[in-house]
């Protein structure tokens, strides 16, 4: 500030005016507007309002800090006395106390800094390559029969996945084992993914919960690449609700835990069975309704036939046939598919046209079909052709109807 020209000003300022001016100056400063500060936490209080108050200090200085509730909710660690942290925010003035302080938006543990930086770098790089793009995401199969699992063969994750699958839906589990933490874990996970790819319908890759360090393999580029190169859809299940790993971002679907992943990849068999039951009863009622409808049209045929005197005699027979049909209909619906083929044949033979053709008989006289009263005279021979043979007789009388 020394280089600012002094302005002689006789005016007497209020405290607030001075404070405003200081506040304004701080707000103008390009560094203090958004600054990252590393230091050690002291005098830490997590107030009942939810806000956090503490100092950041180093060997020579102290900087008062406040982190409001809406910001500290996103913290991935619990601050404590003496912890080394990097806090990011703006330096402003707290007018009532005449103090300046750091309003912290984001804070992380300083020890994790390097890892975190690498994580951010990789994330940015892969994002730039489009590896997280929505369009890249493959759809999971609706009804997989083989589920690949890449995890430790001794971990809880495998058990959790198998438990859920056993309960939900019959599948074949293909385990491609890999150590999921420690030196070389990332490479093992990547190789295991490559091994199982193409041998199953969907792959779950993950592990049970753990500290951020335990999950680190899933933040490594080699794993991210392996996931993105999988032809088979991949579901990540890195058991940590808060942190999103790089593997989660690249995977086609993300589950919070291995159990959740298992639920994601298979449907619920009991639900499907209920659906099948529904289809089954719809089939039964559908076919019954259709058979009823056809029976009704048969009734209509019957009434038409009854109005024709020549065919009157066949009314009784038609009644019987209809009763038979009813019996058959019952059987069709009740005795299900093993009887269906047979019932189908029967019903076909009883269909209206067939019945009609059986109901009619052909009457001939001297080889000519009798179509009208006028075709014959008293004494003429009659030859009545019915389904199973002929009936011979003669004309006793003729009478024109109507």
């Amino acid at each position, binding site marked *: 500030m020394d280089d600012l020209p002094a302005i002689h000003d006789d005016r007497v300022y209020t405290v607030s005016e001075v404070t405003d001016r200081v506040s304004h100056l701080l707000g103008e400063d390009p560094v203090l507007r958004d600054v990252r500060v590393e230091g050690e936490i002291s005098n830490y209080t997590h107030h009942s309002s939810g806000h956090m108050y503490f100092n950041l200090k180093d060997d020579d200085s102290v900087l008062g800090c406040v982190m409001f509730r809406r910001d500290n909710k996103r913290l991935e660690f619990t601050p404590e006395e003496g912890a080394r942290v990097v806090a990011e925010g703006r330096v402003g003035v707290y007018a009532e106390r005449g103090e300046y302080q750091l309003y912290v938006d984001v804070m992380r543990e300083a020890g994790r800094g390097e890892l975190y930086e690498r994580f951010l770098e990789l994330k940015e790089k892969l994002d730039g390559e489009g590896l997280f793009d929505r369009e890249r995401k493959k759809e999971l199969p609706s009804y997989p029969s083989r589920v690949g699992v890449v995890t430790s063969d001794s971990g809880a994750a495998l058990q959790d996945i198998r438990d859920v699958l056993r309960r939900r839906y019959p599948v074949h589990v293909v385990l491609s084992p890999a150590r999921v933490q420690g030196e070389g874990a990332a490479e093992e996970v990547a190789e295991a993914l490559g*091994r199982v790819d193409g041998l199953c*319908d969907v792959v779950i890759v993950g592990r049970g919960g753990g500290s951020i360090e335990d999950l680190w393999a899933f933040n490594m580029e080699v794993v991210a690449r392996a996931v993105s190169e999988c032809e088979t859809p991949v579901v990540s299940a890195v058991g940590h609700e808060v942190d999103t790993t790089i593997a989660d971002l690249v995977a086609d679907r993300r589950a919070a835990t291995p159990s959740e992943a298992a639920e994601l990849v298979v449907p619920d068999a009991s639900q499907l*069975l209920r*659906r099948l039951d529904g289809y089954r009863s719809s089939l039964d009622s*559908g*076919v019954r*309704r*259709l058979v009823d409808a056809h029976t009704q049209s048969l009734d209509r045929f019957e009434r038409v036939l009854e109005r024709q005197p020549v065919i009157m005699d066949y009314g009784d027979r038609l009644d019987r046939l209809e009763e038979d049909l009813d019996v058959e209909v019952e059987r069709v619906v009740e005795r299900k598919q093993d009887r269906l083929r047979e019932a189908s044949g029967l*019903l076909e033979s009883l269909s209206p046209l067939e019945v009609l053709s059986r109901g009619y008989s052909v009457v001939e006289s001297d080889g000519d079909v009798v179509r009208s009263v006028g075709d014959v005279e008293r004494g003429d021979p009659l030859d009545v052709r019915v389904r199973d043979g002929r009936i011979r007789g003669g004309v006793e009388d003729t009478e024109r109807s109507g």
Partner: protein
Amino acid sequence: MSREPDFEDAFERLEEIVEELEGRDVGLDEALELYEEGVELVSTCRERLEEAEEKLEVLGEDEG
């Protein structure tokens, strides 16, 4: 890889059949044929869902 498009298809086909049987313009023969097909699909799917336990296969480390 043993994908099961059959299973997915079966469900779709069943929906179709049910819809047709619920329609008005189906002849008796056709209705019975559809019914028969539907009943068979239901039992095939049911068998698949009620199949034995989940199986575990472990890929050998040396295969990669």
